C-alpha cells in the first residue's frame, strides 16, 4: 500500500478497503524504520496523526466514503515542510533559532489541507529558512537522497522530497523561492509544482523572500499535484499578495484531457540559452527525448530566446538576500525564538541571539542583503536587480507571445554528492540557474521526472504564463500517461 500514489490511496480510502488509521500507522512505521538514516523529518506527530486518522475514519464511515463528502483528501496522510506554522506543533524552519518555537497558529495552507481532511504525519526537514539547494543547511542535519544516501535530495524542500520519494507519505507540501520545490523534486524523481505568485496564501509560511516565495505540492504525479493544489490554492484575505481569483478544477481538467493527441496544438518553446555550457550532457539528452515524447503527443516544438537568462542568478542573489535580511530581523530573541544566555545589554542580546540562532548560510545571505540595501549601494545592487528582474520578466512575456509552455531541464546535473559544494557558495547557487527565473517573474512552473541517468532521476521543467497551472498539469499528465519515470521507486524503499 505504501507504494500507491495519492490518487490510489484516496480511492482505497473512499472504497474503505483500508482505513486512514491503518494507512497512518503504516506510514509512521515506515518513518520509524527508515528515517534514522534518511533524516527527512524534524518532527513526527504520531499521536495526533492517529487521532486525526480516527476522526477521518469516522467521517468516512458516516458518509459512506470520501467522495460523497467531496473531500478527496479525507484521511490521506501527508507531511508539511517545517516552514509552515502548525498550531501546537514545533515549527523550526530548519533553524536553531526556532528549535523551541511552537506556533500558536496554523498557516493558511495547513488550515486548508486540514479542512480537506488530510492527516499530518509530521514536519519535514529543510534548509534553514529555506536557504539552500542541498538540504545541508539544516540545523537538524543533512537529509539523504533515497536514490543514493550519499547524495543530497536537493533543497530547500529536501525533507519533503525525500519523504515522498521514500514512500513515507504520498504527498508533501513544499515552498519554492528559487526552485526549492522543483529542484528537490527533480533530484528525487517526483513531480512538484510552484504555482503563480499569489495563487497560494503565504500566511503562516515563514517568509524567506516575500516577493518570490510560493508554496506548492510535491507528489508522485501531476495528477496527485492537481489534487493537492486544488486544496492548497485560493484567495486569502490575510495575505495582501494573494490573488482573488477562483481556483480551477485542476483534477477534472486532467480527466477531460485524457485522450490520444491530448497535446494537439500545444506550442512548446525550447530556450536556446538553456542548452549551453554547464548542462550535464546526460540531462540534455534526457530532456530532448522527453520533448520528443511531447511532440509525439501532438505538441509543436520551436526554439525561443530568453536573452537575459544568464542574469537570473545574479539578480536573484540580490533580491532574495535583500528581502531575507529584513524578513529575518524579527528573530531578535525578544518575543520568541532563541535567546542567548545572560545578555549583558541590548546589543549583546541581539548579536549573540542572532549569531547563535542562525546558521552559516543564513548569516551569509543576511549580510549580502544588508549590504545590497545599505546607503551608497542600494542603486548599484538592489535597484539594478529590480530592473534586471523586469527584463527577465519581459523576456518571458515575449516568449509567451509565441509559445504556450517553455520546456527545459530543471537542474544542470542530477543529485550531487553530499559536501561536494558546501565550501563554495557560488557553485551551489549556480545549481538553481533553470528554476530561479520563474520566481523572479512569478510564473507557474513544474518539474517532473523524465529519465534516470546513472540510476538518478532527471527532471523536466515546464513553465507557463500566469495562472496557467492547468496547462502545465495537463502537459505533465499526458506525458505521464505515456511514460513510467514517475512510477520508479528508489530501490531501497520499494
Amino acid at each position: 500500500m505504501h507504494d500507491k500514489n495519492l490518487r490510489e490511496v484516496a480511492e482505497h480510502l473512499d472504497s474503505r478497503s483500508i482505513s486512514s488509521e491503518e494507512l497512518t500507522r503504516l506510514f509512521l512505521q515506515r518513518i520509524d524504520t527508515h528515517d534514522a538514516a534518511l533524516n527527512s523529518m524534524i518532527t513526527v506527530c504520531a499521536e495526533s496523526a492517529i487521532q486525526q486518522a480516527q476522526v477521518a475514519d469516522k467521517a468516512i464511515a458516516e458518509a459512506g466514503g470520501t467522495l460523497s463528502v467531496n473531500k478527496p483528501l479525507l484521511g490521506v496522510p501527508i507531511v508539511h515542510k517545517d516552514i509552515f506554522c502548525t498550531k501546537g506543533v514545533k515549527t523550526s524552519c530548519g533553524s536553531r533559532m526556532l528549535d523551541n518555537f511552537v506556533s500558536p497558529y496554523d498557516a493558511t495552507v495547513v488550515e486548508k489541507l486540514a479542512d480537506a481532511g488530510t492527516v499530518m504525519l509530521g514536519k519535514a526537514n529543510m534548509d534553514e529558512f529555506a536557504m539552500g539547494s542541498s538540504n545541508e543547511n539544516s540545523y537538524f542535519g543533512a537529509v539523504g537522497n533515497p536514490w543514493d544516501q550519499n547524495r543530497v535530495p536537493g533543497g530547500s524542500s529536501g525533507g519533503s522530497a525525500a519523504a515522498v520519494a521514500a514512500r513515507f507519505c504520498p504527498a508533501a507540501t513544499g515552498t519554492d523561492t528559487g526552485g526549492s520545490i522543483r529542484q528537490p523534486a527533480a533530484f528525487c524523481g517526483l513531480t512538484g509544482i510552484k504555482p503563480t505568485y499569489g495563487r497560494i496564501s503565504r500566511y503562516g509560511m515563514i517568509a524567506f523572500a516575500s516577493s518570490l516565495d510560493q508554496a506548492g505540492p510535491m507528489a508522485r504525479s501531476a495528477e496527485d499535484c492537481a489534487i493537492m493544489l486544488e486544496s492548497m490554492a485560493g484567495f486569502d484575505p490575510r495575505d495582501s499578495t494573494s490573488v482573488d481569483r477562483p481556483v480551477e478544477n485542476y483534477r477534472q481538467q486532467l480527466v477531460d484531457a485524457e485522450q490520444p493527441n491530448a497535446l494537439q496544438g500545444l506550442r512548446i518553446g525550447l530556450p536556446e540559452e538553456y542548452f549551453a555550457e554547464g548542462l550535464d550532457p546526460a540531462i540534455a539528452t534526457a530532456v530532448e527525448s522527453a520533448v520528443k515524447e511531447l511532440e509525439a503527443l501532438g505538441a509543436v516544438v520551436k526554439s525561443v530566446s530568453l536573452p537575459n537568462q544568464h542574469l537570473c542568478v545574479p539578480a536573484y542573489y540580490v533580491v532574495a538576500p535583500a528581502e531575507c535580511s529584513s524578513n529575518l530581523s524579527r528573530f531578535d530573541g525578544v518575543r520568541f525564538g532563541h535567546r542567548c544566555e545572560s545578555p549583558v545589554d541590548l546589543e549583546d542580546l541581539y548579536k549573540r541571539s542572532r549569531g547563535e540562532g542562525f546558521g552559516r548560510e543564513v548569516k551569509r545571505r543576511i549580510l549580502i542583503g544588508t549590504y545590497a540595501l545599505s546607503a551608497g549601494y542600494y542603486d548599484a545592487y538592489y535597484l539594478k536587480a529590480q530592473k534586471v528582474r523586469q527584463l527577465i520578466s519581459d523576456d518571458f512575456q515575449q516568449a509567451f507571445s509565441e509559445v504556450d509552455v517553455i520546456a527545459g531541464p530543471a537542474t544542470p546535473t542530477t543529485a550531487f554528492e553530499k559536501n561536494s559544494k558546501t565550501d563554495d557558495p557560488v557553485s551551489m547557487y549556480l545549481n538553481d540557474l533553470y528554476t530561479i527565473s520563474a520566481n523572479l517573474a512569478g510564473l507557474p512552473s513544474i518539474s517532473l521526472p523524465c529519465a534516470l541517468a546513472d540510476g538518478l532521476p532527471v527532471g523536466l521543467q515546464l513553465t507557463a504564463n500566469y495562472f496557467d497551472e492547468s496547462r502545465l498539469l495537463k502537459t505533465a499528465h499526458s506525458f505521464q500517461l505515456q511514460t513510467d519515470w514517475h512510477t520508479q521507486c528508489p530501490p531501497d524503499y520499494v
Partner: protein
Amino acid sequence: MASENSSPSSTGTSATANAQSGAWEVVIGLEIHAQLATSSKIFSAASTAFGAEPNTQACAVDLGLPGVLPVLNREAVRMAVCFALATDAEIGRRSVFARKNYFYPDLPKGYQISQMALPIVGRGKVEIVLEDGQKKSIGLTRAHLEEDAGKSLHDEFNDMTGIDLNRAGTPLLEIVSEPDLRSAAEAVAYARKIHALVRYIGICDGNMQEGSFRCDANVSLRRWGQQELGTRTEVKNVNSFRFLERAIEFEIERQADVLESGQAVIQETRLYDADRDETRSMRSKEEANDYRYFPDPDLLPVEIDDEYIESLRAGLPELPDARAQRYREDYALSDYDAGVLTSDRATADYFEAVVTDGRVSPKLANNWLAGEVFARLNRDNLELADSPVDASALAGLLIRIEDNTISGKIAKQLLDDMWAGKGSADDLIEAGGLRQITDTGALESMIDAVIEENPGQVAEYRAGKDKLLGFFVGKAMKASQGKANPAQLNELLRQKLKP
C-alpha cells in the same frame, strides 16, 4: 485636555523676539505624528483602544510572529486622503509602503512599515494667523502613513526593560512641514492649526497626553540673508503646545549661544525635559543610521482614483477657515472670536446649535460659550462633548437674557445650577422666582423707599455729586433681590433724583 484643546493661544514671544532680532534667523520645521482614529490597527485587526493591560491588544501580526502578514486598513487610507483634501495637498495616486529597518525592542519586526519615495500625501499648505493678525501660508512637504511602535517601560523592573506592544501597529499619519516657521510662536500656531484640522475632519482625537498627537521640531539658526540652512537639531518628546514653545525657545537660545561662542551646532536628536525646561542630547554616542528603506514586498502599491477622491471631497465637513469666514460675514464676529469658535469642530457645532433659530444673538452666544462655558469646562477638566450643559440648554438660558426675563448676573448663577444638574433655565427661574422685575410701578416704589431712607445722600447727589448714582442703584438692586432690570432701574433713578 480641554485647556490645551480649546483655549486660544496665549503665547509669549519675548525670548523668540530676542533671538529673532539678534544676528540669527530662526528656521523651524515640524514633524507631527497624528494617530489616526481607526478602530483597528493599520495592518492588523487588533484594537487601537488606549489604556489596555500590556500586550492584550497585540495580536500575532503586531508581534511580528513568524509567518504573519500585513493587510492595510481601508480607513487609514481614507483618513490620509481626507487630510490631503483639507490641506489642499497633492494625493499620491500610487503610493508605496517601504520598510525602515532598525533594531529596537519596541519595534517587533525589526522594521517599521512606513512610506518613503511615494507617500500618500504630497505637497500641501495651511494658513496660520500671526500675533499681529497677519496671515502666513505654511508649506507641507508631505504626509505619509506608517505604523507606530510599542512602548518601553524602564521603571517597572530593576535591571530590565519591559516591552508593551499594544501600541505597535497603531496607524499614524506623519505630517512634515517645510522649514517655513520663523519662531516658536509660529510653530505653535502651525501645530495648533494642524491639530484643529485633524480633529475637524475626524481623523485624530488630538489627545496629546495619550500620545495621539506628537510634535518633533527641527530647529536651526542662520545669519540673516544666508541662503543655506544651518545645522539643525531635532527636538522630540514634546507633549503639549506649551512645551513645544518652551522647547523651541530653549533650543534657539542654546544654538545662539553655541554659534556666538564660535562653535558649531551638532546635528542630533534632543529630548525636551519638561521638569528642567531644557533639551538634552538623546544619544551619547552619535550612531549613523542606515535604515535601508526598500519597498515592502508584503504589500502592493496603493492606487487611488478620481472617483474615490471626489466621493471623499463631497463628504468633507466645512473646514475651519471657511467656517470662520462665514462667522465673520454672517454673524459679524471678530477675526479673533471667529477663530476661537472654529478652532475645533465641537465648539463650532455647539455654537451654531445655540444660535440656530435666531433667538440668541451670535455675540451673546460667543461671549457665553468662550467665556462662561469654557471656564467651567477648564475648571472641571472636561471636554465640550461632556459638558453638563448642552447647546440647547445654554440656548434656553440665553433666550431668557435676550427677552429680559433675567439679568446676566442671575444667568451666571443659573448656569452654575444647570451645571450641577438642577434643571433647565426656565424651571430654575420659575422655582426661584427669579424673573426680572420690569414692572415700572414696582420699581418706582422700591426707588421711592430708597430715596426716603437716605435723605443725606439725596441732597449730596442733587448738589452735584453724580458718583452717588451707583450707591442708589446698589441699594435699589439689593431691595429687588437682584431681580431689577438694571437698565430700567438706572433710568428711573436718574429721573427721580433730578433736582
